């Protein structure tokens, strides 16, 4: 397809779609599908077909709407109303009262169950009002399987702009100017990474998309892959153009079959329209993308391990430098970025780096998607400008802790991150501030814990995870995580002495400093951060053989025997 042909197609699609004034959108995100949204979609289609609701109504499957715990969700697009927990038996009023009678159904509106006077318009509800959507902007509007939908919404405009009006240097320039940093968690400036690869001549360079979202409690990448796959694809193609790579790999977790399926569809559709493959938009730029399915190893989220896995080997990391941008897949320059990073690239190229740099904080620009879960009222996917405080995310957007319980800690960054206590709720969520607190931004999992969680038990949970997932290549991680787990286990069982606590405190920094890769270097973080903020809980376990939260099963007798 030629450049102007894509312009024409977009215009044609936009005018065609304007005819369908009343859109009833059914969420086809992973969580809503698990709650039965396919049945709701089928039933709605059937009902509309057999009734006299009239023409111009379109029942449409769309991506995730964000409030993942309330599914299946149905959105009346024109009126900006979202209905929650819809099932084939209770959906009648949506059609008769709302669609036909133009009267919303208050008791079914999203978040109505915690609210005697629910907010009818979804965009006015605090959950949505306080968000700023860039990555998630298309989610609730587009059918994830339709490339036409993506094109209608302005998709592939950035690619057109880059291929026809910009040089690769200019694309890198925009990305650098935007100030975007890697959304996988480490926060390396993306533009600088791309420049490193660009400096090498030759065509054997690679673009890799890290979709091995291993952090438990994180589902942002899954949702982006499932709900806006073309956005990621466009970001990868732009990366290929900017760095001079001709081949890309999307490494997706094996646990996400729907994401794999939708991304595969996206690749096929893009190829058919000539937006991927040989001579994209009939220019002399060619780029191809292949999917690699992960096989369940947390360490493969580490970039050098991920590359080994793409090459079909055991996913063990190696020492950096050389960085993958210089020597990556098959020893060729390789750019690895996270799913969310790629999803940010098209708007940056289209609207300019300066626009993006205006969002967020001067050092950490743009927005970040968080997967809000745990003990929180409004579970789901939220996107906020970087620098928004934890309190705003948890209490304004998330609606606070349910059941009148007290907030205890927020866990960010998964097994590599830490627990942030109440006194630091006003910390802005940015890379530096979180590091200072002993946690990390991570990929964006944000798990809220209330007073019923025992922090020692949480530390043990994460240590168990890291011990299990350690690849075994370097000693500090392989042996260190095991020892730390056993010590934590001892504390949880009430068999530990203060000597054990001391040992733990000297072991943790050692593992942190001497491990080979990010897994080992960050494995002590949950332990260190809970020790820092919840020391009294550790002491209660050790000295008084008591678990303040009542989670751990104490067995004080054995302490004497030992």
């Amino acid at each position, binding site marked *: 397809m030629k450049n102007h042909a894509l312009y024409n197609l977009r215009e044609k699609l936009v005018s065609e779609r304007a005819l369908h004034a009343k859109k009833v959108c059914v969420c086809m995100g992973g969580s809503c599908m*698990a709650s039965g949204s396919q049945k709701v979609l089928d039933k709605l289609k059937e009902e509309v077909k057999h009734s006299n609701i009239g023409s111009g109504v379109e029942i449409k499957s769309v991506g995730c709407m964000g409030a*993942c715990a309330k599914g299946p969700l149905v959105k009346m697009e024109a009126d900006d109303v979202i209905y929650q927990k819809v099932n084939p038996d209770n959906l009648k009023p949506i059609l008769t009262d709302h669609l036909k009678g133009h009267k919303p159904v208050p008791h079914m509106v999203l978040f109505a169950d915690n609210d005697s006077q629910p907010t009818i318009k979804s965009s006015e509800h605090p959950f949505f009002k306080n968000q700023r959507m860039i990555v998630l902007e298309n989610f609730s509007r587009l059918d994830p399987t339709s490339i036409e939908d993506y094109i209608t919404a302005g998709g592939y405009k950035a690619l057109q702009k880059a291929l026809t009006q910009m040089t690769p240097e200019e694309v890198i320039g925009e990305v650098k100017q935007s100030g975007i940093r890697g959304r996988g968690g480490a926060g390396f400036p993306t533009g600088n990474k791309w420049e490193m690869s660009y400096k090498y001549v030759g065509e054997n360079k690679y673009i890799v998309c890290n979709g091995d979202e291993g952090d*438990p409690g994180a*589902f942002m990448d899954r949702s982006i892959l499932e709900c806006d796959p073309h956005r990621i694809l466009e970001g990868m193609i732009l990366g290929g153009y900017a760095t001079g790579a001709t081949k890309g790999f999307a490494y997706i977790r094996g646990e996400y079959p729907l994401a794999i399926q939708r991304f595969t569809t996206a690749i096929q559709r893009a190829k058919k329209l000539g937006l991927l493959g040989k001579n994209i938009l009939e220019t002399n730029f060619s780029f191809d993308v292949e999917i*690699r*399915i992960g096989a369940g*190893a947390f360490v493969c989220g580490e970039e050098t391990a991920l590359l080994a896995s793409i090459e*079909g080997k055991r996913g063990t990391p190696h020492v950096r430098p050389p960085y993958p941008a210089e020597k990556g897949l098959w020893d060729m320059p390789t750019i690895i970025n996270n799913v969310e990073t790629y999803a940010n690239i098209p708007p940056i190229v289209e609207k300019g780096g300066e626009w993006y740099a205006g969002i967020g904080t001067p050092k950490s620009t743009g927005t970040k998607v968080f997967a809000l879960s745990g003990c929180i009222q409004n579970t789901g996917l939220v996107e906020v400008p970087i620098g928004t405080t934890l309190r705003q995310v948890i209490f304004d957007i998330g609606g606070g802790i349910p059941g009148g319980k007290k907030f205890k800690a927020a866990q960010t960054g998964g097994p590599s991150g830490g627990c942030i206590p109440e006194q630091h709720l006003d910390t802005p969520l940015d890379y530096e501030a979180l590091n200072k607190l002993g946690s990390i931004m991570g990929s964006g*999992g944000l*798990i809220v814990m209330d007073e019923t969680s025992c922090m020692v038990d949480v530390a043990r949970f994460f240590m168990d995870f890291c011990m299990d997932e350690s690849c075994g290549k370097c000693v500090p991680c392989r042996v260190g995580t095991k020892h730390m787990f056993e010590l934590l286990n001892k504390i949880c069982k009430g068999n530990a002495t203060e000597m054990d606590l001391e040992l733990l405190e000297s072991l943790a920094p050692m593992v942190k400093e001497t491990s080979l890769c990010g897994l080992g270097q960050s494995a002590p973080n949950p332990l260190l951060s809970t020790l820092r903020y919840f020391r009294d809980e550790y002491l209660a376990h050790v000295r008084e053989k008591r678990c303040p939260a009542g989670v751990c099963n104490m067995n004080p007798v054995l302490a004497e025997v030992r």
Partner: protein
Amino acid sequence: MVSATNPASAAPAIPRSDPRVRRILTVMNSHGRKSDALIQVLHAVQELFGYLPKSVIELISKEMRIPISRVYGVVTFYHFFSLKPMGEHSCVVCMGTACYVKGANLLIEQMEKGFNIKPGQVTKDNKLGLQAARCIGSCGLAPAVVFDGEVLARVKPEELVPKINEKLGVTA
């Protein structure tokens, strides 16, 4: 071990004409039999057989020209691959952080009590396999359990065993 032969547990040989084997050869060819496609080929085997039979691993090693030691190394590295059959039905309890905070460990306890199996094990009648997942990414539905691909949301500990029994077609 892959190469050790133990007549007592020897699985029946799988003929080359088995449609599943032919399918695996097709997958191999679609990747040009390049060694970097090993994990993708193993995925196909796991999906078609439910586990990785020894004879198929040997076939892959031969056809893709990868030493069997390396294939074995890869197989044992990744959680997804299993060297033994995983039971007719699978029950996966998500042990991600969000599910853990909401009591997923109690679900595992119930399963251990109700079916006398631990995660990674199969019941004696080979009906049900229990697994603990790292995170299935359905944190909004925590605690979540996946039975034969179907996600059960917000599972209460006391409801789990009856629910699974019902799905297995056993009246408790």
